[in-house]
């Protein structure tokens, strides 16, 4: 798993790469949590462009971050997910609670 962080105003953008399964779920959660704890972060955008595989362990981390972010009044969105990843997101119901956008900019506008 690869992670890249960028801050734009109150939004943290996390660009994720690799396979989001059980083997990486814990470090995925911990590293995103760590970055969310930085001062002034309110919203989260997960750019999943380079994610080649996701299963319910990866989805669990995404949903967990959503709960945490929205509890303190922030917003969350997904960007650039490839079709096979998007399909899993859709089936899981996650896309009923947060938006998935084609570009990071569209996601930024939305949060």
């Amino acid at each position, binding site marked *: 798993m690869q992670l890249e962080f960028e801050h734009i105003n109150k939004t943290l953008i996390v660009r994720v790469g690799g*396979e989001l*399964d*059980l*083997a990486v*779920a814990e470090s995925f959660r911990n590293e995103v949590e760590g970055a969310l704890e930085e001062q002034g972060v309110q919203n989260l955008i997960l750019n999943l462009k380079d994610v080649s*595989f996701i*299963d*319910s*362990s990866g*989805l*669990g981390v995404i*949903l*967990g971050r959503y709960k945490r972010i929205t509890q303190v009044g922030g917003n969350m969105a997904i960007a650039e997910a490839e079709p*096979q990843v998007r399909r*899993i997101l859709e*089936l*899981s119901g996650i896309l009923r609670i947060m938006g998935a956008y084609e570009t990071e900019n569209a996601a930024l506008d939305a949060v």
Partner: protein
Amino acid sequence: MNNQMKLEFLSLAENVALARVTIASFASQLDFTLTDLEEIKVAVSEGVSNSIIHGYGNQPDGTVRVIASISGDTLELRIEDDGKGIEDIPQALQPAFSTEPDRMGLGFVFMQSFMDQFQVTSEPGRGTRVFMVKKQIVHEGGVDKVQGLEG
């Protein structure tokens, strides 16, 4: 064609990808579509993750077995552990049900929706077996037409 394989490994999270890659390679001996292969990978990932997390409670010294066979155009998968087993299978199968607070309870849902047949058997204290079947779609000229009719 007919073929058989069995993969056994320790209950380590690192081995979920191993199981996925191995079964995807085996399944690709049939003419599955890329979407089918993706679905098979998710189903394997969920079943093996369950054995590791729930069956063995994340202890690394359990053994997970993935048994696969191809007969004709059909892939059969069995995922087995000798872990703690499931007391109440109907409850475990409910969407969103999980015994772990931070999990989604979607593993069995994905296995059921991605495979053509699905069955769980379990003996509490002795282990769990998941049996799944996926059939290759028979293409006739207009590939997607056939898919549309069957789906």
